[in-house]
């Protein structure tokens, strides 16, 4: 693998640390605006995920990086060079397609060698690199097969190998795992991440699966309606969503109705029933006291407590679902914005301790929830 890794380091050390930069990029299709002044910098060697609901412009942004169409405004740079007018075939990118797009009339080896042949690399060197990358994706011995003789997961790995063997400046992946079943998907995710780390290849990954985004990425850009709503590490995105869209799109969230009760340095206090919950202050800055706010809290951050605890608010267990590793408790609560709250309890005794019908209290730790003004 030395060869692939070496060429990576070569590009990484030259120039600045940003591999791909979108600068106020706008893209329109007829009357519809797919991207509105999107700015995003992807660091060299970084695994960047574009996450968002269908139609938010993820594929469009990826295709702009690939050069399949050109932006209506703004600038795209790869390794510092402006590429707005550079055709795809001169961009030195690697792309993996949702349906793999393996050339059906070529063998696995020919598919992988295609990019090397285009670059006029001698046959001997070509064969060596094909073998090397086949070993990397654990497909040694499959070189002679035709794509249709491979399983979905194997085709996927060939597609990855084909994109990687040319040591691209950036690897672009558009929902690569959406066609795989759940188990295969999980193992391919791990494999992709390992290979990406090993080669340190800058990667832009598109998905609408928030779990996939959180588990794979160095950073996630959450998009909606042609804009980036939040850019941050998976933990930042999950723990500190910057608005209600991100809070409800990424991960499960309970919504509680409360009122802004006061400010206290870096925190705001929100009153939920009789309880007081401390939340980050930023999203509530400038909001008047007693304004109604919505409190977003993750199922595993909602803790069951004694009903009489002073900082708790009450509810009644409506249903229990045993999930193996944890127990999901559905709780009816006056403060809930939907009819039930979901509490995820890791304790194995949850089934017996809080039977259906039990009155329970719930507490939320400092910074374990975020609040936004009611729109």
């Amino acid at each position, binding site marked *: 693998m030395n060869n692939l890794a070496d060429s990576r380091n070569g590009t990484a050390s030259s120039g600045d640390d940003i591999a791909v930069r979108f600068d106020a990029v706008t893209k329109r299709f007829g009357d519809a605006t797919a991207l509105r002044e999107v700015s995003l910098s992807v660091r060299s060697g970084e695994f960047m995920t574009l996450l968002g609901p269908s139609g938010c412009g993820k594929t469009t942004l990826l295709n702009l990086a690939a050069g399949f169409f050109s932006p209506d405004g703004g600038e795209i740079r790869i390794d510092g060079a402006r590429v707005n007018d550079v*055709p795809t075939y001169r961009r030195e990118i690697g*792309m993996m397609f949702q349906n793999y*797009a393996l050339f059906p*009339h070529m063998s696995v080896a020919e598919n992988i060698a295609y*990019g090397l042949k285009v670059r006029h690399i001698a046959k001997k060197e070509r064969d060596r690199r094909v073998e090397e990358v086949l070993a990397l994706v654990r497909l040694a011995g499959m070189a002679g097969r035709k794509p*249709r003789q491979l399983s979905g997961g194997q085709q996927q790995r060939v597609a990855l190998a084909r994109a990687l063997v040319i040591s691209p400046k950036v690897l672009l992946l558009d929902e690569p795992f959406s066609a795989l079943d759940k188990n295969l998907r999980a193992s391919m995710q791990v494999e992709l991440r390992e290979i990406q780390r090993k080669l340190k290849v800058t990667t832009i990954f598109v998905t609408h699966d928030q779990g996939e985004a959180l588990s794979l990425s160095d950073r996630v850009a959450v998009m909606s309606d042609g804009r980036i709503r939040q850019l941050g590490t998976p933990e930042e995105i999950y723990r500190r969503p910057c608005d209600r869209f991100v809070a409800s799109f990424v991960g499960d969230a309970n919504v509680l109705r409360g009122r802004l009760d006061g400010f206290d340095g870096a925190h705001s206090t929100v009153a939920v029933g009789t309880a007081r919950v401390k939340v980050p202050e930023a999203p509530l800055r400038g909001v008047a006291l007693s304004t109604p706010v919505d409190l977003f809290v993750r199922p595993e951050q909602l803790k069951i407590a004694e009903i009489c605890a002073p900082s708790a608010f009450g509810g009644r267990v409506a249903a229990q679902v045993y999930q193996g590793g944890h127990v999901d408790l559905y709780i009816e609560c006056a403060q809930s914005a939907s009819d039930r709250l979901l509490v995820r309890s890791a304790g194995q005794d949850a089934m017996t301790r809080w039977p259906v019908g039990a009155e329970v209290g719930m507490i939320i730790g400092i910074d374990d929830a975020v609040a936004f003004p009611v729109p």
Partner: protein
Amino acid sequence: MNAQPFLRPFTAPAVLCTVGLVAAMAAVLQFSLRAYVPGSLEPGGFTLANFSDLLKPLYAKVFLDTVWICFLTAICTLFVGYPLAFALVRTQNAILKSILLVIVVTPLFLGEVVRTYSWIIVLGNNGFINSVLMNLGIVRQPIQFMFTTFGVVVALVHVTMPVMVVMLAAGLSHIDRDYQKAAESLGAGPVRTFLTITLPLSMPGVVAGVTTAFAWTFSAFATPQLIGGGKVNMISNLVYQLGFASFNFPFAASLCVAGLALTIVVLTVLRLAARPLDDLKAH
């Protein structure tokens, strides 16, 4: 069929057509095995003489000419039709697409005779091409297009074009655009992408187009009749002469049978030659 017995009544028209076709074929086959009685429309006794007569150089040449003309026409139609089909499938411009479609499809509605007459106007000694060439002083004498294989093939290419373009366009439109994008992302420019990806993947369409064009041309009658003018003969012209000028129905029937057999042989050979391409059709 067995799983959906309620569909059976719907096969009735097909069955009727088949019965009619089989009966006609049987009649032709029966005629081809009867002796010719000069001066009579009734055939004589059973004989194989008609088929041995086919081997005479005069008739054998018509068979070879027919295959040669069909082959030339199919290949020329392919070369003219491929760019048209490609543009038709790939253009994003709706107006250009409509124009192309009209160019490709109108000949279908004109009928063979009308199209052939228009080619006589173009190719004749006083026709469009020769007038232009002579007025420009490029040639002194008109170039002989009429009554030549060249003239017949040119007109046949026009007649066959719609079929070819439709077959090619069907093949081309089934090629996933992602293959091309993948090739481009790997560094291949437009020409290389076309030669190494699009062209090979369009081969099933090419084979289908050439095969159909070949069979289509094999039955051509009006075009070789009018432009060939008796100097360029294809099988159907010979059948016409023997059947309706000499009233030698048995021999005309044997020509039909032999022509049909030849078509089947040629198409089978083409089909077998295209076997290796079957892989591509799944995609």
